[in-house]
């Protein structure tokens, strides 16, 4: 016993409480769910075969991936523009911008979803305003379709996209860009051939972060999709709480988890993960 104890650093004693809690109450049931995906209702790969056999299931996965890809493209490119502007302006202005960004980051997801409901509904503020101005004759359908879900999701994800980009742009050595200009490159050449490639790690981190968060997003699609846009997260909740089918839900969760872990692994190749997390909570 003493021989073992001498090899274990005493610091582990105060790591243990949290570690035990997370292993027992979090990792345990997650492994159990992975196990369920190949044993419930019967042992075998039946749940995974459903992906090929069931058109509706395949459609849900496809809808989810499509919405996540579009959300990621918009959030990261708009986020890039914001981060670029923030890095290249005076400190005062940058602080104002950061404040706006963080306030929106902190406003409850439920409050934001509720606001979109008020703005985008058939009699919402946007449609009413457009009609009074005579821009449209019939209300535009923003809700209960993918357009509404996309607006809500991009709005939620932009701050998450900006923060890793900001970290990456701030750590850049601006003399490299000066050197490029001195050697005769134009502004746009410098941007496309020097600046953009140098911020690539930030772009990859931000892309994967937004994609991972979008993949399991529940609140906004459920409310703004209004039952018409079914994504994996909402489908899982229906399977568990209404039809009580653990097997199918567990299979979808296993796929989602595998995707997330794979993306985290790729992300760790490009950037210290703690930098991304640290940046996103400050």
């Amino acid at each position: 016993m003493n021989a073992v104890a001498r090899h274990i650093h005493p610091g582990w004693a105060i790591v243990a409480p949290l570690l035990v809690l997370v292993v027992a109450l979090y990792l345990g049931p997650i492994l159990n769910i992975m196990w369920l995906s190949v044993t419930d209702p019967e042992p075998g790969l039946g749940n995974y075969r459903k992906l090929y056999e069931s058109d509706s299931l395949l459609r849900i996965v496809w809808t989810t991936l499509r919405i996540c890809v579009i959300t990621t493209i918009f959030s990261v490119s708009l986020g890039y523009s914001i981060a670029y502007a923030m890095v290249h302006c005076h400190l005062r202005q940058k602080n104002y911008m950061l404040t706006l960004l963080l306030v929106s980051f902190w406003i409850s997801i439920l409050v934001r979803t509720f606001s979109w409901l008020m703005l985008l509904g058939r009699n919402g503020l946007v449609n009413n305003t457009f009609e009074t101005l005579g821009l449209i004759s019939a209300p535009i359908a923003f809700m209960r379709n993918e357009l509404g879900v996309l607006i809500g999701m991009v709005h939620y994800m932009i701050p998450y996209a900006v923060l890793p980009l900001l970290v990456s742009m701030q750590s850049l050595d601006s003399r490299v860009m000066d050197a490029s200009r001195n050697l005769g490159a134009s502004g746009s050449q410098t941007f496309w051939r020097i600046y953009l490639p140098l911020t690539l790690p930030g772009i990859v981190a931000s892309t994967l972060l937004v994609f991972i968060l979008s993949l399991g997003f529940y609140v906004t699609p459920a409310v703004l999709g209004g039952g018409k846009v079914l994504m994996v997260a909402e489908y899982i909740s229906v399977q568990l709480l209404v039809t009580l089918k653990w097997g199918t839900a567990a299979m979808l969760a296993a796929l989602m988890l595998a995707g997330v872990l794979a993306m985290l692994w790729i992300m760790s190749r490009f950037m210290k993960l703690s930098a991304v997390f640290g940046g996103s909570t400050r």
Partner: protein
Amino acid sequence: MRPGLFSLFNRAGAWVLLLFLVTPALIAIPVSLTPKRFLSMPGNELSLRHFQHLFTSEEWLSSFFQSGVIALSTSVLATFLGTLCAIGLWRVSSKYSELVRAFLLLPLIIPQIISAMAFYRLWIPLGLLDSYLGLILAHTILAAPMVLITVSASLATFDPRLEQASKNLGASNWTTMRRVILPSIRPGVFAGALFAFILSWDEIVVTLFISKFSVYTLPRRMWNGIRENTDPTVAAAAVVLIAITIIAFVVSAILSRRNAGESRS
């Protein structure tokens, strides 16, 4: 270097985008002041009746109370466990401690819906569904990584020789922890506690799975209101939440400014 035309254009675009991020939430303010019984924009007259309902209705008040109790307990528990863990990992500082750190951050990045499934799965046999303890434990596991991050960030700037000095001067482990380490990482601990509180106060996905009748948190009640989409009391609750967000934001800004001031001096 003078900013080019493109740069100026981009800056204007960025401002528009940032306003787009914040302004939609403000629509809750006029909607909450409508004198009508259903969700609508107020006409010529304003009324505070929905705020009055919010603060006199037993249901809403009990939700505020329950959310407060759960968020406060979560914050205390997560801060305690997360701070200890961060100090432990910092002391060990080996290949394995970095692996453990990465593992402990997972609850923050694994999709909430999967976490919700996991807790739901385990809470059924443990009889923790629909109980304060069940929600507090689940929220603590989700929030502890936040504390781990903020405290680790504070520890990164802490000079380990101070700990050595304290021990050489005869202080016990406990005294060193209380009188030397904790005071220097205080900003990280406070920030972590604040983040843990907000996470729990705001949490909806896991809560939807593991609470039903007896525990009905504020987000849960708002979620119901949003789904029913009729009662303007939801708008009043949204305004209160925005106000709380702004207050919390100011508090954290002051804390981090003080933090920056300390590290500079």
